[in-house]
């Protein structure tokens, strides 16, 4: 969708006290306030507010249709919010930027379904993601320097794909593709990583390995993980936000949430 959707002022959705961007805390890397999105009458996000602090590892859970993926779409510029505020690093208004600009600001994203460039090699995939000049004419004459090659090797090591360097990405196993995508995120070296269901379809061993990988990454980046798998969330051991029907239902540690009545009702009730 590319056309700018005219903001539909939703009287209910607009928060009573409008907080200006400058008032956001300096260490808030992602500031979402009162964001609403609707598709043909269906409210995918309903007055959603969420704040992520720099360096934080945050997990987001919620049942199907809670708006997790739409939230990611909004942050990365794929979907324009109908209303609400969205700031990155305190002052950059994300609602005015497109995907490429947002990516270049330092927000990386991993999709729900592993999306790597299947017809290209693992090496090429990482090379494409490597932080650098994204212009066409630079690309025509670009060369990989020694430092960059070393960086690639380092990431290959981290995602355990060193031996698959020259393989077509399409030939990798499902789990390996997930890692490759995480590796691509690392190559981008973003300030904020949005990771959508990294453990989906993985074996237990792979899941464990992935959790370790993310924790490691979280040491140097802010990470937001969307996940279904409670075991995995537990392994991440971080602050958790529960989404329901497009807004935040509860927040806190996993243990506290597991005793929250609302959360139990949403997951088990009905």
């Amino acid at each position, binding site marked *: 969708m*590319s*056309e700018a959707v005219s903001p539909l002022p939703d009287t209910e959705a607009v928060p009573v006290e409008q907080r200006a961007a400058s008032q956001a805390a300096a260490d808030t890397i992602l500031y979402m306030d009162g964001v609403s999105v609707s598709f043909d009458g269906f409210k995918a996000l309903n007055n959603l507010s969420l704040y992520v602090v720099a360096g934080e590892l945050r997990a987001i859970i919620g049942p199907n249709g809670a708006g997790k993926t739409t939230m990611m779409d909004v942050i*990365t510029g*794929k979907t324009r919010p109908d209303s609400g505020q969205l700031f990155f690093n305190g002052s950059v208004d994300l609602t005015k930027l*497109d*995907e*490429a600009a947002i*990516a*270049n600001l330092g927000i*990386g*994203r991993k*999709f729900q379904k592993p*999306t*790597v*460039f*299947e*017809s*290209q*090699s693992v*090496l*090429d995939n990482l*090379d*494409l*993601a490597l932080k650098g000049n*994204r*212009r*066409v004419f630079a*690309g*025509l*004459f*670009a*060369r*990989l320097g*020694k430092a*960059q*090659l070393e960086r690639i090797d380092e990431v290959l090591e981290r995602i355990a794909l060193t031996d698959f*360097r*020259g*393989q*077509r990405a399409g030939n990798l196993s499902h789990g390996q593709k997930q890692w490759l995508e995480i590796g*691509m995120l690392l190559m*981008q070296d973003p300030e904020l990583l949005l990771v959508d269901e990294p453990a989906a379809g993985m074996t237990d061993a792979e899941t464990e390995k992935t959790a370790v990988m993310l924790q490691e990454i979280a040491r140097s980046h802010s990470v937001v993980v969307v996940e279904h798998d409670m075991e995995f969330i537990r392994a991440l051991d971080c602050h958790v936000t529960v989404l329901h029907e497009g807004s935040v239902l509860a927040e806190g540690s996993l243990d506290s949430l597991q005793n929250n009545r609302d959360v139990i009702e949403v997951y088990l009730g009905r």
Partner: protein
Amino acid sequence: MLLSNDHGRLLSPLGSRITLGLLLTVAVLVPLLNLAVPPGSFFHVPTYLVSLMGKYLCFALLALSVDLIWGYCGILSLGHGAFFALGGYVMGMHLMRQIGDRGVYGNPDLPDFMVFLDWKELPWYWYGFDSFPFALLMVVLVPGLLALVFGWLAFRSRVTGVYLSIITQAMTFALLLAFFRNDMGFGGNNGLTDFKELLGFNLQADGTRAALFATSAVTLALGYLLCRWIICSKVGRVLIAIRDAESRVRFLGYRVEFYKLFVFVLSAMLAGLAGALYVPQVGIINPSEFSPAQSIEIVIWVAVGGRGYLHGAILGAVLVNYAKTYLTGALPEIWLFFLGGLFIAVTVFLPKGIIGSLSSLRDRLPVAIMRNPFQREVPGE
């Protein structure tokens, strides 16, 4: 040290070496066999074959330009014939100006069709075409500019897939109708014809034809090299990435629209060049080159040869056009059955086209396993 640009491998796959070798050989051999070998000898190539093969080479260049955007970037243009035709018209305008007062009405300023339709003076957009360098510039600029405007609008609004294909079709259809109009000043349905000479050489002389043929072959070879150079560069890999997963590329921070625009404009320019080489060899340019059916045929050449293989596009163009030449002469009443059948058979039995099927055959051989795992692979080769 590995390069991000793989230009060292520009010629490494067998296909490209054969292609270039062939092109350069025919560029020398065919004119030689035409001019130096006496008629009647077994090795003599008659002039009509020179022109015919020259025409095939122009089509091959056109197919190459389509493969560049379709095979490598996933942009299916069903209107590429428009760029070809525009290049052709530019060359046609230059050739018309070269006629001077040798037209049937002997008017030194106006082409015959303008005299005929009562035009009093040369319209402004015909100015400058007497100059060959200017015309040559326009050959790439006019199609390039149209592609720039059209592409900028389309790619910026992220028109993709069939929507893009259909509006490219609308574009060429609109141009077809526009060029049909006699009021446009491009000769209407009859188009531009009755050319006399190019750069002072008589277009009907064997030498000129041979030279045009050689030029076409060399241009095609250069075009091929240019395309390979792009494909082997990082840009090439971004293009393939766009073809395979466009939104992923955006989230990596690439401005997909600029990449698409770059390759689309370049492709349009190559198509324009092909058109410009085509016109002096066939002797006429008229609006039927804009017809959507023509553009669809170009896509079919590429599909038959093998989408995503540059030499496949060349092979497809030559093969399908040769089949057309042969069948319309040998089986004039039923040739469409064969051609139509060929298209269906290729899609059903050789979904990757001829080259694609050949190379997947090659991939199945044990040799493939032995290949150096660290060697970069350009998808499609």
